């Protein structure tokens, strides 16, 4: 089953075609460009390219998987509306995946989930992406699973929480950016939500032909909007 994967929750714009079989997920084509200001320009051509490279027409897709963020709003919406509009035309289900979960899975997959508590703690990884405004989106992961729910906080606050949850390393471009504050060894990879991990997190739904899901962004912040205060008089 061919699946289109898109994620625009970070400065990276990712498009991929993955093949989901009964027991595996394999990428057939992948494009990633890193430019936080050009998500709207880059994503659609990248989707067209990965389809061409996979030798598949849009009509051959079985499902579309999209990273729900959290991520800076404007860019994040590009991936979600692209996935939703394509899903509507093709009549195929869309599935959302938390983008931090994809990083967490890639960062901790392969660790032995049945390890002793000490071993598990040693394998705990802080995943952090840049939320701008000097904040990061973050979560702690172990053995491919969430230890904490996705949240947005200042790096210093995240450093304290990461210590509390015994994270032994950090990944993600948010972690790289605030490495000095986080005081954890930062691994260079994965830096952005990997397409194969996004596909893997939706693979069971793809295989089961689960119902389509609304692609609701994980904003984690309210819009900046303030009700007007009393008007300033114009008379002196």
């Amino acid at each position: 089953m061919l699946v289109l994967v898109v994620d625009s929750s970070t400065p990276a714009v990712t498009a991929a075609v993955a093949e989901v079989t009964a027991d595996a997920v394999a990428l057939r084509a992948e494009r990633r460009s890193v430019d936080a200001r050009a998500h709207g320009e880059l994503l659609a051509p990248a989707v067209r390219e990965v389809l061409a490279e996979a030798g598949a027409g849009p009509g051959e897709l079985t499902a579309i998987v999209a990273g729900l963020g959290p991520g800076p709003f404007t860019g994040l919406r590009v991936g979600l509306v692209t996935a939703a509009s394509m899903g509507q035309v093709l009549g195929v289900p869309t599935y959302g995946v938390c983008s931090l979960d994809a990083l967490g899975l890639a960062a901790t997959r392969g660790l032995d989930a049945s390890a002793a508590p000490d071993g598990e703690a040693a394998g705990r990884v802080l995943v952090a992406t840049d939320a701008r405004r000097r904040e990061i989106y973050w979560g702690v992961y172990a053995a491919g699973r969430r230890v904490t729910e996705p949240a947005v906080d200042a790096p210093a606050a995240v450093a304290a929480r990461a210590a509390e949850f015994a994270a032994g390393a950090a990944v993600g471009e948010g972690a790289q950016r605030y490495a000095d504050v986080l005081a954890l060894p930062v691994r260079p990879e994965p830096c952005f939500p990997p397409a194969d991990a996004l596909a893997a997190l939706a693979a069971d739904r793809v295989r089961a032909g689960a119902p389509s899901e609304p692609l609701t962004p994980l904003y984690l912040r309210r819009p900046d909007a303030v009700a007007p205060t009393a008007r300033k008089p114009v008379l002196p």
Partner: protein
Amino acid sequence: MTDEPLVLGIETSCDETGIGIVRGHTLLADAIASSVDEHARFGGVVPEVASRAHLEAIVPTMQRALDDAGVSLADIDAIAVTAGPGLAGALLVGVAAAKGYALAAEKPIYGVNHLAAHVAVDTLEHGALPEPAIALLVSGGHSSLLLVDDLAHGVTPLGATIDDAAGEAFDKVARLLGLPFPGGPPIDRAAREGDPEAIAFPRGLTAPKDLAAHRFDFSFSGLKTAVARWVEARQRAGEALPVADVAASFQEAVCDVLTAKAIDACRAQGIGTLVIGGGVAANSRLRALAEQRAEKYGIQVRVPRPKLCTDNGAMVAALGSHLVAAGVAPSRLDLPADSAMPLTIVSV
């Protein structure tokens, strides 16, 4: 005629998610979802709130448009989308959606200018537009006079507001008078009971010295301040506010300047057609005064019905249909949303 192009238009430049479908000059569907109620308590459109609403509304609005027109995306010949000007984040949702639709349905895409679309929508009401024509576009986001010599390739700006847009002035005055947002419809209603000559509010950029440099430009900031001063003075004196008279006199000042300059532009260019578009074109006094003044000079005024004047997808589809018919090449799939798209660019 069934060989005319079937074109779908997507509009998300402000707070309306609009999807329209036209065949040639025939309107088949005009589906709209508005987030205006979510902005009302802020007294103006909040960009992030608008963008979030567009993302939620686009798929269901598309479904409604397709159902209303009785067509599927496979039948569509081209997809047009507002690429600018407008709110950057709001535009981006519509442009990305249009690309997704175009990509999945394997259709050409046209990224078009919102203001040119306000002109093109009139073709759905009155048929092909005579060129050249003068267009007056007035809304909460823009107030412009344009020379439309070739709607498929470019229009020439003659003048624009140097401060507030006309619709913005309506919103601000409505707030002063305790009327709801958006201010256009309640002021129009209140003004019907009032005397347009009760208060002599200023007409911006109409003095001889201003006309020399700003013959076709507008200014509504001074008017807005004058209304505020007048209202405050009454309130401080403890007098009751004659809401209907203030609304009528304010509305008269706006419509007087808009129509005088629009007619002047037609006469200066020797043009016999004036098209009025944008949300403020729904104002009943603007329509009446424009007709009355144009008649004197044998100028034909074309104003689409109010629902087509405010932002909608039909106007984008109408412009797209015009571009397809004119043989204009489609846009590339990497077309950008441009919040400051100049009027001289009709499609990117």
